[in-house]
């Protein structure tokens, strides 16, 4: 099952040239770029592993692309995303985040129903590999 999160989630996977262009846009906005990866793409998992430190004063997208290349080489079967952090006062949070790598065989998100008091039903989702 194709798991989608963040920006461009309705589009097909971005090519490297497209990723590079998006990063270029982020750098133009003075956003810091971080690369993160995980094997647990559950939507409630916000804690992805950081690939190195966030990059604060780059001028060109090539620097990020090098890190992304290294991360893909080390974790070819992980989900990798790029986060763009805006440090402007009053915002100070991630403004853009998109997936740039996904495993060949993706897990599925499975809906789990549980009966609760008074015939109520509770729903939760878990990843099935």
């Amino acid at each position, binding site marked *: 099952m194709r798991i989608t999160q963040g920006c461009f989630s309705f589009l097909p996977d971005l090519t490297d040239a497209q990723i590079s262009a998006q990063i270029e846009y982020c750098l133009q906005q003075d956003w810091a770029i971080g690369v993160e990866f995980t094997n647990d793409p559950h939507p409630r998992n916000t804690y992805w592993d950081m690939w190195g430190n966030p*990059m604060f004063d780059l001028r060109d997208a090539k620097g990020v692309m090098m890190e992304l290349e290294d991360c893909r080489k080390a974790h070819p079967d992980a989900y990798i995303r790029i986060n763009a952090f805006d440090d402007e006062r009053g915002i100070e949070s991630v403004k853009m985040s998109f997936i740039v790598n996904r495993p060949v065989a993706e897990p599925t998100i499975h809906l789990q129903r549980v009966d609760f008091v008074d015939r109520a039903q509770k729903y939760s989702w878990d990843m099935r590999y």
Partner: protein
Amino acid sequence: MTTEMIDATETGPPTTIDLAAEYETSGVADVLRELDEHLIGLAPVKQRIRETAALLLVDRARREMGLTQETPTLHMSFTGNPGTGKTTVALMMAGLLHRLGYVRKGHLVSVTRDDLVGQYIGHTAPKTKEVLKKAMGGVLFIDEAYYLYKPDNERDYGQEAIEILLQVMENNRDDLVVIMAGYADKMDKFFSANPGFRSRIAHHIDFPDYTDQELLRIARSMLAAQNYFLDGAAERALADYIGLRRQQPHFANARSIRNALDRARLRQASRLFSDAKGPLDADALSMICEPDIRASRVFRGGLDTDIAARSQAAE
């Protein structure tokens, strides 16, 4: 990227190219004009840069016509004594390469050994990569590059930085240009110990020392930029100063002059403070007089420590 490909198929490569027009429109002319106006002396350097600019312009035209595909090797080495304008020229070179489209952003990242080499195992590679990432799309200027290589210590981490640098210089030729700078003799030794660098560096530019006349002109333009001027006697004193300073140790061309002028301004301020009786006009506030220069220790044989060292050597 795709638009470029479409353009090429629609119009095809150009059949003729007007080099003079290219020269003006690309902005190269502006950079070279700036180089001529802002830098005093350095005739051989200017000549070399003009030649390099011509080569790159022709090369770009050839690429547009489809005569060549490869990016030329642009890494350079600037050799010369301290204070001869290597960093300033590197900055202009970054602008030149940017206008010709050989680097995408045209910024200059200036580093020394400390920025590239770590202090313990596993520290060097991330540090060097961090610097390289910042320099992508621009020019990486490595000042005193020969300190990267310390032959007397075989466990020195400099070698690791050198290997990463060499790899990036080869694989990312489209993304960044490396300029290495330093004293001529030490750079020669560095290159002969690291043949990988010599073969990857296409342009060697040598910066000559400034003559006394040129240093005096530099001093005048430095002062003019800060709205100061020298009176006649002070100018003669400064000419004497330059002649004497050159003989003494740690002479750094234009940088020595800038420091001397900073100290002269200091003395001028304290002279005005203690001597002035009435109100001062703008001329009095911006005139450097003879005593401001003559009070320098250079006229008494240099720094006390240097005099002591020399008399010890004589004994």
